[in-house]
């Protein structure tokens, strides 16, 4: 762990700082947020940010159409985004990676069935699937996460499958089989660590996608309920007023952007740390020739 911290580069540090900040917002929202996110101030609706003409110090980033404080809603919104993003992306990653490992390593009939299923799921537009799912089971955060996992595991399966197929033919895996290393051991010790990097990067990209999808569904009234503030919901509420009240969409948008970038940076850095070839960069020198 200490060596991990020592290896923090600018990118890793930025990513870690952003993710920690967002996590802290989510955790400590009631203490950090200046106002109740659902408190309506009908005397100050659509107020601009504090530094603009007509703005007030009470509403640092302005208010929305119901006079709710944008800053407070963004702070509370991080809870939904973070929870939905992390749970949905890691759920999809675990399910998808396990199925991909299994299909790629053992192959055969089950492997073929899994990969055909992947083809089918990939052919369904995700937004359509999410709409139907949320309509049938009702709009809630849990259902959103479930819909995401059920539809997005294929991204991980596809990538894991391809990587495993290539790795399986590598000679060190053959050497393991020749030395009586068990199949589960091969999967856990020899294959998973070698595909974890790319999967991690996909997971951070998917995480950003969940946050965006949540906003899309909220627009259709199928996302999280309006009393729970979420960045996506704020985006959609402000969409129609973008010409007069830019702050209603811009600030949640910036929050989404910063969070996604933070997770991507952190993912990239973690991938490098997982790989001994890039972990301690100084050690790389000295691996000279010897092979033509």
């Amino acid at each position, binding site marked *: 762990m200490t060596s991990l911290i020592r290896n923090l580069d600018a990118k890793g540090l930025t990513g870690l700082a952003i993710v920690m900040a967002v996590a802290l917002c989510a955790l400590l929202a009631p203490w950090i947020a200046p106002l109740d996110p659902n408190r309506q101030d009908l005397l100050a609706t659509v107020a601009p940010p504090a530094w603009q003409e007509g703005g007030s110090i009470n509403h640092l980033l302005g208010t929305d159409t119901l006079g709710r404080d944008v800053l407070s809603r963004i702070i509370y919104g991080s809870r939904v985004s973070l929870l939905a993003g992390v749970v949905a992306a890691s759920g999809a990653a675990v399910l998808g990676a396990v199925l991909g490992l299994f299909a790629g390593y053992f192959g055969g009939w089950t492997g073929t069935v899994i990969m055909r299923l992947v083809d089918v799921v990939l052919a369904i537009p995700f937004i359509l699937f999410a709409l139907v799912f949320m309509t049938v089971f009702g709009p809630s955060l849990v259902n959103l996460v479930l819909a995401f996992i059920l539809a997005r595991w294929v991204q991980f399966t596809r990538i894991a499958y391809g990587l495993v197929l290539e790795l399986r033919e590598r000679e060190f895996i053959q050497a393991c089989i020749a030395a009586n290393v068990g199949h589960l051991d091969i999967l856990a010790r020899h294959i998973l660590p070698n595909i974890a990097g790319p999967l991690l990067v996909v997971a951070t990209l998917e995480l950003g996608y969940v946050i965006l999808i949540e906003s899309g569904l909220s627009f259709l009234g199928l996302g999280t309920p309006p009393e729970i503030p979420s960045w996506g919901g704020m985006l959609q509420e402000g969409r129609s007023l973008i010409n007069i009240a830019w702050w209603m969409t811009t600030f949640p948008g910036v929050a989404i952007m910063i969070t996604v970038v933070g997770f991507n940076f952190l993912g990239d850095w973690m991938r490098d740390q997982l790989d001994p070839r890039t972990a301690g960069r100084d050690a790389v*020198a*000295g*691996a*000279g*020739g*010897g*092979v*033509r």
Partner: protein
Amino acid sequence: MSLLLDVADLSVSFRSGRGRVPALRGVSLSVKKGQTLGVVGESGCGKSLTALAVMGLLPVPDSGIDGGSIMLRTGGSESDLTKTNSARRHRGKDMAMIFQEPMTALNPSFTIGEQIGEVLRRHEHLGRQAAQERSIDLLRSVGIPAPESRIKLYPHELSGGMRQRAMIAIAIACAPALLIADEPTTALDVTIQAQVLDLLRSLQSQLGTGILFITHDMGVIAEMADEVAVMYLGTVVEKGPTASILERPAHPYTQGLIRSVPTIEMSRELRLTPIAGSVPSLSRAPSGCRFNTRCPHAFEKCREQEPPMHVLDGSQQAACWLAGEL
């Protein structure tokens, strides 16, 4: 015999995280008209880099020529290929290159005929019909059977040996004065290697091409080269006529290289005497003679001063303080 290619004191370096790493240091070698110079050495010795420098194909901006000259003499004129755009003007027309792995050197999405035709149309300004006829002739001359139908095939539809022949056909399309062959038979089986070596020799005698032949295989050197240059860690350590280098190697590295290779004639009781250690990375090249860390004869002076080329009898030269004594 007149010089076709004269590389003098060529230095090339790579940019890396920790500054510039010299990859070639004062390389001098020459190819005579219609003759073959074999360049031999292990991975990282700079033999392929030398070829790329001649062809003007050094990876930019990661590497650059720091000094020296590469003179190409064709058709009565002389040009320095280290000058900007100079190599590009001669590439394809006066000089061409054959690579080790034809599958990566050929474009997978064009037929063999289209790829030869492209060269002919660009450099010889032939029309489509004429180019196709010439392509068929060329494929026939490199020993590809039924060339009329083969020109319609894509690279992946040919066997390894046939692909290498197709690449040779592209390389000789404009009858270049200089052919650079970088390990052209390393990826091939011995029986196919034999075919390709035969082909290169017969093309050379027909066209009078000078060949710069890069390989790690002493047997191929013995078979193909009139003269040899032995490279180690970016320097030429020994050069001269093939026969004298193979019979009386003067540099300890050449000697070690020859003793490391098992031969079919060798008695089964003999043990190989390998060179100790392994090739250091370029960024950690030793001072003085670059071979001193692995040399059985190294002494004080070798670690301090880089030995110059000593001219031995005939035209054999070796960069060793003990040249002629070992």
